[in-house]
């Protein structure tokens, strides 16, 4: 019986991993095979560590001091599941050209998938707006450089709430270019699903 139980757990875990990988694959826009500057985006925030969570007095919580990667924003447990007001979008630029790169710029845009609060199926993507441009980025051969910028989720939620709407997802896109050159060396994007409570 225990063996069967663990097999079930292992199967469930495997299914979960597969689902996560599939979701990532769907969210990420893979760069072309011929490009050797690769960019990717992840999301992170500060949250409580497990040792902080255990027995925590929610009325007097300690400062959040542990960086966690976010696959989604979800309010299903006020303490146990990260649902930060502000999330950091982290763009990583990998130089696989074999030569140093300089004078790079990274343009980061955001979009929101918004719709009526109780109807996720009716949500649509807004047009993109430039969040930030990073310039004069240098990356040594074989190395990587990261840029990160905060995205204020709470502000967006508060604005939309006035219209009885909800941001069901955040999309961050990044283009890496040589300054003064229109064609992008690399493009990527990532989505952060935003799930309200029931």
């Amino acid at each position: 019986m225990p063996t069967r139980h663990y097999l079930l757990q292992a199967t469930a875990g495997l299914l979960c991993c597969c689902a996560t990988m599939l979701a990532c694959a769907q969210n990420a826009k893979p760069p072309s095979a011929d490009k050797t500057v690769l960019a990717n985006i992840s999301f992170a925030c500060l949250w409580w560590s497990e040792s902080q969570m255990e027995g925590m007095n929610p009325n007097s919580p300690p400062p959040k001091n542990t960086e966690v990667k976010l696959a989604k924003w979800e309010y299903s447990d006020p303490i146990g599941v990260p649902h930060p007001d502000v999330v950091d979008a982290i763009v990583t630029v990998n130089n696989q050209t074999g030569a140093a790169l300089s004078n790079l710029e990274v343009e980061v845009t955001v979009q929101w998938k918004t719709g009526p609060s109780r109807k996720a199926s009716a949500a649509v993507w807004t047009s993109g707006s430039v969040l930030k441009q990073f310039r004069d980025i240098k990356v040594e051969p074989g190395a990587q450089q990261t840029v990160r910028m905060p995205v204020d989720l709470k502000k967006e939620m508060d604005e939309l709430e006035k219209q009885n709407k909800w941001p069901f997802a955040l999309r961050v896109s990044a283009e890496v270019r040589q300054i003064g050159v229109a064609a992008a060396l690399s493009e990527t994007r990532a989505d952060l699903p935003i799930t309200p409570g029931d």
Partner: protein
Amino acid sequence: MAVQPSGPMLLGSVGRHGQNREEDVLVVQQLLNTAGAGIDEDGDCGRGTISAIEEYQRNWTKHPDGKVDRVGRTWTNLLQGKLKIKKAAYIVLPQACGNGYYSYSTMDRQFGTPPTVATLIDVAKLFAVHYPTMQIGIGDMSFKNGAHMAPHVTHRNGRNADIRPLRKDGKMLPTDILKPEYSRDHTSELVDMFRANLNLHSILFNDSTIKGVTHFEGHDNHLHVTMKE
């Protein structure tokens, strides 16, 4: 044909999916405050105003739509000024840890109807009798006044409580049905104890091997328990 009482007029609808002209919203906010809403009179039809409209409509319906039409029952009643918003008489879940439960949400989010709070305490006590080293984690319930509890859709009527599944190690930490520390046996017993209580209405939870729970998206890591009263 309904006869409109004399007084202010609306040029458009106000509230959820309403036209929400600023002048109209302001008039409705003023009338709602006369009825005891206690909301900002800013001409902006936000969640607070819609919530107040809903609470006002609860005077005659269990299914408020949060909207005031130019000609309709809500507007007529507001103009007549006879009905008042009934303030929910919710009580706070005692925060004392060690009575078979612990809180994992702030105190302002742990209000419920007296029967709901009593049920939670009773079930926690019963659970503690059988498992004295384990405690039930109780999270969001309702606000004291039944206001909208962002980002929840529900949790306004004082009859909902989120409860963490039990863990094999008994730690006061979150878990979900796919984690190895999740204890199906203990969680199942907890569900049975709730089901044995006459005040239980329903439990949303995604471990479908447990009898008496209903699968619902987003409920891998908590039981959404709803009471009858």
